């Protein structure tokens, strides 16, 4: 049973050996910091992707010919209008534009300022910026902006349509936070310009979204659409969300599994270090035992000290990881997730983690830490006081 004076005394003994524990603290801090950082990035990206998916309609229909994605037209969409339970049918014009100078692809999404678009963020954007409705404006994400500026395209840019025509467009950065979620390599432009860039004729589209207010009807509708278009790829919102979870679980899980290998090495190191510090601490513990400290007092003392090191490493790593990811944007580390494509650079991550993530890191970090020192602590605690008398 600890007394009021126990904890200050425990920290006093810890402080006098601070240099000896500093290495353990630093190693543990680095491990937990990396773990937290990766977890924060992963949950943030997952959160953003889920937010996008939540804002999109319930069913996406894509046409496939010979296993390759193909465009759709009014003829393809015509039967869909007759489906009961479908509130809205929103065709999409989107694709990739190759920026040859940088050797990268930008995602182009054609937006209609006067009709519903497939994403709520875009709908809000078109409502707010209706005065900017123009065929020669490129609304660009930060990754695209950075890429263009690198080649001195600050205000204007010349694009080439599929027919080889050059078009001069004005660059307008997308400042809204919501577009960061959609992707930084994004270009929003008028739907007719998008068609020209993506070689789509009028009444041709990339794919189509169906808005279904009653979730219970979705499986029926999917089955119905399959009979209408047997080769089409139909993705429901639920499937998309599940895929996002699975993707991030898989990525995160592989990382965590590899991390655990690192952690096991740390545990072995810590075990050996604690065991070998036995010699230098033996006299001190022997003195405490000799003056009347119980074995349980010594065990409690040592566990408190180790717990303090572990918890201070944990919390300082948590704070540093938070600042590193959410304030500094996780430079270098984010490349693990987004690759080296500069246009996919993410300047800000959305803080979105819960108690669950904190508990996971606690279990994977602090619990093995304490488990590693249990045996060495016990070995130290049962020293015969007569050892001191020799």
């Amino acid at each position, binding site marked *: *049973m600890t*007394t*009021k*004076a*126990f904890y200050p*005394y425990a920290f*006093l*003994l810890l402080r*006098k*050996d601070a240099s000896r524990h500093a290495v353990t603290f630093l190693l543990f801090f680095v491990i937990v910091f990396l773990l937290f950082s990766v977890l924060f990035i992963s949950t943030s990206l997952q959160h953003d992707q889920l937010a996008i998916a939540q804002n999109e309609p319930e069913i996406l229909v894509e046409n496939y010919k010979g296993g390759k994605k193909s465009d759709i037209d009014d003829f393809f969409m015509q039967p869909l209008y007759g489906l009961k339970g479908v509130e809205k049918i929103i065709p999409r014009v989107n694709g990739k534009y190759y920026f040859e100078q940088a050797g990268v692809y930008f995602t182009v999404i054609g937006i209609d300022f006067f009709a519903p678009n497939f994403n709520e963020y875009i709908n809000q954007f078109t409502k707010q910026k209706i005065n900017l409705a123009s065929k020669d404006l490129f609304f660009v994400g930060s990754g695209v902006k950075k890429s263009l500026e690198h080649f001195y395209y600050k205000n204007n840019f010349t694009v080439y349509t599929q027919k080889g025509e050059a078009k001069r467009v004005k660059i307008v950065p997308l400042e809204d936070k919501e577009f960061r979620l959609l992707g930084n390599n994004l270009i929003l432009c008028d739907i007719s310009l998008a068609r020209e860039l993506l070689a789509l004729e009028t009444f041709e589209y990339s794919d189509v979204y169906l808005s279904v207010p009653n979730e219970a009807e979705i499986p029926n509708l999917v089955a119905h659409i399959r009979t209408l278009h047997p080769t089409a790829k139909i993705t429901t919102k639920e499937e998309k969300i599940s895929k996002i979870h699975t993707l991030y679980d898989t990525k995160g899980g592989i990382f965590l599994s590899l991390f655990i290998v690192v952690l096991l090495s740390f545990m072995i190191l810590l075990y050996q270090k604690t065991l070998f510090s036995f010699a230098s601490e033996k*006299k*001190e513990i*022997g*003195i*405490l*035992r*000799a*003056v*009347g*400290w*119980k*074995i*349980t*007092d010594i065990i409690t003392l040592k566990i408190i000290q180790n717990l303090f090191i572990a918890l201070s490493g944990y919390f300082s790593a948590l704070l540093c990881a938070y600042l590193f990811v959410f304030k500094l944007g996780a430079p270098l580390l984010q490349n693990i997730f987004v690759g080296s494509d500069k246009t996919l650079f993410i300047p800000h991550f959305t803080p979105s983690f819960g108690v669950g993530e904190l508990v996971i890191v606690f279990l994977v970090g602090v619990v093995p830490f304490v488990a590693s020192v249990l045996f060495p602590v016990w070995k130290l605690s049962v020293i*015969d*006081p*007569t050892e*001191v*008398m020799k």
Partner: protein
Amino acid sequence: MITVTNLDKVHNAGQKNEFIALSGINFTAANGECVILKGVSGSGKSTLLSLVGGMSKPTHGSVRIEGHNIAKLPDDKLSHFRLTTVGFIFQSFNLIDDLSFRDNVLTPTICLNISDKEREKRFLKACELANISSKESTLAKDLSGGEKQRCAIARALINNPSLIIADEPTANLDKDNTLYFIETMKKLKKLGKTILIATHDEIFEQSTLADRVIKLQYGHIVS
């Protein structure tokens, strides 16, 4: 106060390197008595002190302190006994070098559920008895030999134990400090404390401190 009956201590019993440290020890010490244990190195003096002080356990026999057989107490009760009933003074002082004088002296009070006020009161009383002050914040490793000794005495006295055990307490002290130690022990004896001292130093037998001298040889009491 102390009754030791048929005490044996065998190290590595039943093994090739079995060693009988003590055999058939019987002796008593009354309250307020000072007993000197004499004998060459390896005679069993330190072993006997550690058994009486509850620092180790005998192989056979009993050690009764104020009627309680401490030989078969579990560790927590034995530790509590050491904490409250025994004050140990070691040959090499056994202070924690990187702690201050004050923290060393207070070490035995940390596990006791007493108020800070009581703790402070005990500290001042112990320093008064050991006749040392104004060294509170000095690290133990920076104290002189005599100061270390007095720090060790203060630590031994802080919980007002009824039994003081000293193992070769003056082996590392000069003559002046030795005499000073003896005077301190006389003071404690007057307060009714029972004192056991293991020593080679003849000066203890010559002083008026000792009531009895027990001589040990090869783990037996010879006189």
